[in-house]
């Protein structure tokens, strides 16, 4: 009888310790996940602040209103529309402003959208040919936009 009571107490204590450990683990995971999200948000905001600091007033106004801005290629005078994003987010426009194709080139590394868009702007405005030489061109227009 005494052994049974001792066994029950031991089981209860073990279950209690297990529950406490699980709770602590959940807290650590939750905090880590929330910290990651917060870090990503801060990084995104930092990238956008940098971008906005380097845009012309007209480009900044366009970006803030439509989430895209236009740049003029340094070599051909072609107009490109850089949409918010990090992939296939550059649209080549005709002189009448119609869509011709999409271009995709990005700075190497896992950079946030603001940084990517700023590098794309500088590249097209200072070395258009060099940028397009490494870029992938896409004529696909159907399907959802991924900007």
């Amino acid at each position, binding site marked *: 009888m005494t052994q049974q009571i001792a066994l029950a107490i031991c089981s209860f204590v073990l279950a209690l310790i297990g529950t406490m450990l699980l709770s602590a683990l959940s807290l650590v995971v939750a905090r880590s996940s929330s910290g990651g999200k917060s870090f990503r948000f801060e990084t995104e*905001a930092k990238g956008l602040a*940098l971008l906005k600091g380097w845009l012309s007033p007209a480009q900044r106004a366009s970006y803030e209103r439509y989430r895209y801005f236009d740049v003029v290629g340094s070599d051909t005078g072609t107009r490109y529309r850089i949409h918010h994003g990090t992939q296939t987010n550059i649209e080549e426009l005709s002189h009448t402003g119609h869509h011709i194709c999409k271009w*995709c*080139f990005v*700075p190497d590394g896992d950079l946030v959208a603001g*940084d990517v868009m700023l590098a794309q702007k*500088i*590249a097209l405005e200072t070395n258009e040919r060099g940028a397009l030489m*490494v870029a992938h061109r896409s004529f696909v227009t159907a399907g959802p936009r991924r900007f």
Partner: protein
Amino acid sequence: MATQIVMDRTGDSRHSFDVHDRVEVEKAERRFKELTGAGFTAAVRSGPGEQKVIRSFDPTADETLFYPRLVGG
């Protein structure tokens, strides 16, 4: 103070230096060479919304921005 801004996974890293301090300027020049040697492009502002790419260190630039080598996405 001048600043070198290097794009990275944290958004960017900033390195400020006193243009009147020879040691700091030399350090900034070394950083410039290291980054451009590693494929980064350096750009400075030349007007509102305008910029130019530089191939050699310019200690008089208020801000020099470095972005990594471009690749097809």
